[in-house]
């Protein structure tokens, strides 16, 4: 196997292929990542979402806009509004702004009517009044899907695209350790992933910029606190990423059920839950009780 490691969107990537990736393929991957970042990064002054936040009103819709907004709509419905792409202002209010000021002030809820404010029409992405769109809950998963699809057009055979916690596997199955959120030297279980994607959420470096991206409850603008780490396996990394986020909120397990996504999550008190029929091996699960 050949492994290509690099940094992009503020996180470490590894692309493992059966044969070395030709230079043209690497260039194509780099272009894809750069274009995605230029569209969606809320940590860059020159991104499209930054322009919309400054009042640009309408911009040519980035390629992923339709799928991302559709998935956010499903997340928002399932979690009763806890997941919301306009949570960006709430994040900034808590100090997770582009300057990482960490000067937290009173939390502000994200606008509940985000679907009225963010529209996709005629190839244009429009916000009714200046608003910061944040696709952090699913953006990295989406990117993993696109990179995996792109790489597969250049090389045949086994493939792993791993963006530090969000990974897609084609061909030979990969055994993935589920890192203990309280102790990076330990794993709470192992999940064998075959022709699917696994996304983990737990991390305080889960997104781009410097990766200080925190999932807030959009209804309050403030944090919720119960779940320490989540893992989800789905056919696409975007959906796995979406469920990994939704599992922090009421309704996440139901959406996973509707989408047929398997999951494991660790609560902040050390307990571990998993989905019905979950394929992961959770250490200590013999002591489990079925609720």
């Amino acid at each position, binding site marked *: 196997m050949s492994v290509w490691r690099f940094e992009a969107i503020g996180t470490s990537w590894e692309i493992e292929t059966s044969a070395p990736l030709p230079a043209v393929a690497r260039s194509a991957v780099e272009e894809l990542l750069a274009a995605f970042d230029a569209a969606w990064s809320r940590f860059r002054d020159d991104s499209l979402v930054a322009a919309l936040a400054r009042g640009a009103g309408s911009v040519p819709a980035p390629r992923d806009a339709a799928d991302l907004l559709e998935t956010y709509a499903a997340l928002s419905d399932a979690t009763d509004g806890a997941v919301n792409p306009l949570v960006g202002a709430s994040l900034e209010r808590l100090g997770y702004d582009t300057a990482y000021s960490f000067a937290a002030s009173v939390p502000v809820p994200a606008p509940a009517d985000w679907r009225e404010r963010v529209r996709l029409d005629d190839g244009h992405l429009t916000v009714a009044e200046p608003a910061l769109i944040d696709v952090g809950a699913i953006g990295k998963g989406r990117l993993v899907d696109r990179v995996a699809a792109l790489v597969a057009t250049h090389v045949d055979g086994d493939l792993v695209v791993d963006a530090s916690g969000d990974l897609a596997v084609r061909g030979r199955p990969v055994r993935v350790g589920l890192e203990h*959120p309280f*102790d990076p*030297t330990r794993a709470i279980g192992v999940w064998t992933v075959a022709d699917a994607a696994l996304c983990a959420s737990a991390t305080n470096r889960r997104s781009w910029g410097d990766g200080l991206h925190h999932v807030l409850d959009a209804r309050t603008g403030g944090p919720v606190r119960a779940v320490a780490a989540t893992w989800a396996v789905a056919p696409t990394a975007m959906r796995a990423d979406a469920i990994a986020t939704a599992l922090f909120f009421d309704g996440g397990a139901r959406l996973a*059920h509707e989408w047929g996504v398997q999951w494991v999550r660790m609560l902040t008190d*050390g307990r571990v839950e998993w989905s019905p029929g979950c394929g992961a091996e959770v250490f200590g699960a013999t002591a489990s009780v*079925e609720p």
Partner: protein
Amino acid sequence: MTRAPHRSVIRLGALMGVAGALGLTACTPESSAGAAGGSEEFADGTYSAEGSYSTPETVETILVTVTLADGLITDVDVEGSPQRPESEQFQGEFIGGIADEVVGRPIDDLVVSRVAGSSLTSGGFNQAIERIRVEASEAAG
């Protein structure tokens, strides 16, 4: 169906490795107070300090309580105050199972090619331990 109380103690084993790296020593036979902490002396007793760490949604606070005897850590408790994420009515239908306080296994002992996740509390645990270290050192001085 019984539920654990919201305040619960995280198992010691998962965290002792972190303590060992901080200059305080774990209660393993081969450890000694001076091994990592130089000539520093600590007053025996039970110390508590708060530390915080970031989860994807928030900054969590944990309370770390350490008991020192003869300069060695003989007990560590870590308390958090998590809230339930899921309404009770959802649990039976969409949750397949639950295990209490999973301590896990050392990753070095596993045959895995990748690891997914990211440690959360070690920073907060380190903060709390450092405060306790200073306090116990001052108490000894």
